[in-house]
C-alpha cells in the first residue's frame, strides 16, 4: 500500500467512515516495521489497540465454567425432581379430595339431615310409597288439576306410621 493509500484510509478512519476490513488493514500496516515517519504520531494508537486485545482469561477458565455449568445442571435436575415430587404430592392430594368428595357431601347431608330416619321399615311399605309417589307424578304430568288426594294420603299416612 502506498503512503497515499494509508493517508486516505487514516483520514477516513478518523472521520469514522472506515469498514472493519479497512480498519484491519490499517492495523496490519501499523504493526509492520516500515511505518512512514509522517504517520508515526498514530502508530501508538494502533499498538495500544492491539495490546488491549491481548488481555484474555486464563485457559483454565473455560474448564471451570463448564464444570460449573454441569454442577448447575445437576442442581437444576435436583430442583426439578423436587418440584415434580411436590407437584405430584399435591396432585395426589387433589385427586384424593376429588375422589373422596362426591361421597362426603352425601354423608354430610345425611348427618345434617338424617334421611334414614324417614325410611319405611318394610320393603312393602317402601314399595307402596314409591308407587304412590309415581302415581302422583304421573297424574301431575297428565295435567290433572285436582290434587291426587288418594296418593298424597297414602304418603302422609304411612309416613306418620314410622315417624
Amino acid at each position, binding site marked *: 500500500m502506498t503512503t497515499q493509500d494509508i493517508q486516505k484510509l487514516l483520514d477516513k478512519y478518523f472521520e469514522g467512515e472506515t469498514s472493519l476490513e479497512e480498519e484491519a488493514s490499517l492495523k496490519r500496516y501499523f504493526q509492520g516495521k516500515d511505518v512512514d515517519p509522517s504517520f508515526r504520531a498514530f502508530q501508538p494508537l494502533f499498538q495500544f489497540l492491539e495490546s488491549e486485545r491481548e488481555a484474555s482469561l486464563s485457559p483454565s477458565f473455560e474448564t471451570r465454567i463448564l464444570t460449573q455449568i454441569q454442577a448447575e445442571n445437576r442442581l437444576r435436575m435436583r430442583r426439578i425432581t423436587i*418440584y415434580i415430587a*411436590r*407437584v405430584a404430592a*399435591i396432585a395426589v*392430594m*387433589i385427586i384424593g*379430595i*376429588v375422589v373422596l*368428595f*362426591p361421597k*362426603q*357431601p*352425601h354423608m354430610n*347431608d345425611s348427618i*345434617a*339431615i338424617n*334421611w*334414614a*330416619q*324417614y*325410611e*319405611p321399615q318394610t*320393603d*312393602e311399605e*317402601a*314399595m307402596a*310409597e*314409591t*308407587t304412590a*309417589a*309415581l*302415581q*302422583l*307424578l*304421573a*297424574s*301431575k*304430568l*297428565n*295435567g*290433572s*288439576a285436582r*290434587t291426587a288426594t288418594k296418593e*298424597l294420603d297414602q*304418603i*302422609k299416612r*304411612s*309416613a*306418620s306410621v314410622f*315417624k
Partner: protein
Amino acid sequence: MRTLLFVITVVLLGVSSTAQAQSDAISKYFSKYVDDERFTVVYISPKMFQLFDKLDINLDDAEANAIKEVVKDLRGLRILVAEENTMELYKEASQLINKKEYEVLMTVRNKGEESVDFLIKDNGGDIIDELLMIIGGPDDFVLMSFVGKIDINKISEMAKAFEEDDKE
C-alpha cells in the same frame, strides 16, 4: 409455585364443594326445616330399591308394569309434604332451585289453585339423573326428588298408562 398450587387446591376444593352443595337441591332446601314438625318426610334408600324387584304391585297390569319399569331405574326417592303455609313454601322452594343445574321440564299453573313444576337434571340425553316435582297448592306443598338413571321415555309411558286409565 407454592402460591400457585395453593390457589389451584383452593379453587378445586371450592369447585367440588359448591358443585356438591348445589347438586342436592332437596337437602339444601330441607336442611332449613329438618326439625319442623309440620313436614311429612319420606325417604327410600338405594338399598331399598334393590329389594323391590321381588315385590308385586297391587295395580292393573299396564300401570303396574309401567311403574315397575320406572322403579328399575330409581336409586333414591325423597318426599317432603307440608299442609301449612303451602304457597310460601312453594315459592321458597322454586327460588332455591338452581336454574343452572336443573332444567324446567314442565310447569303447570292452575289459576289461584295449584302450581306444579317439573325439573330435571340431565346430561343432555334421554337418561336423566334427577327428576324434581314441586307442587304448591292451597292445601298441600309437595317436594319430590327421584334420583337414579331415569329414562324419560319410561316416565312418559307411565304417565300415558295412567292417562288411559283415567279416561276409562
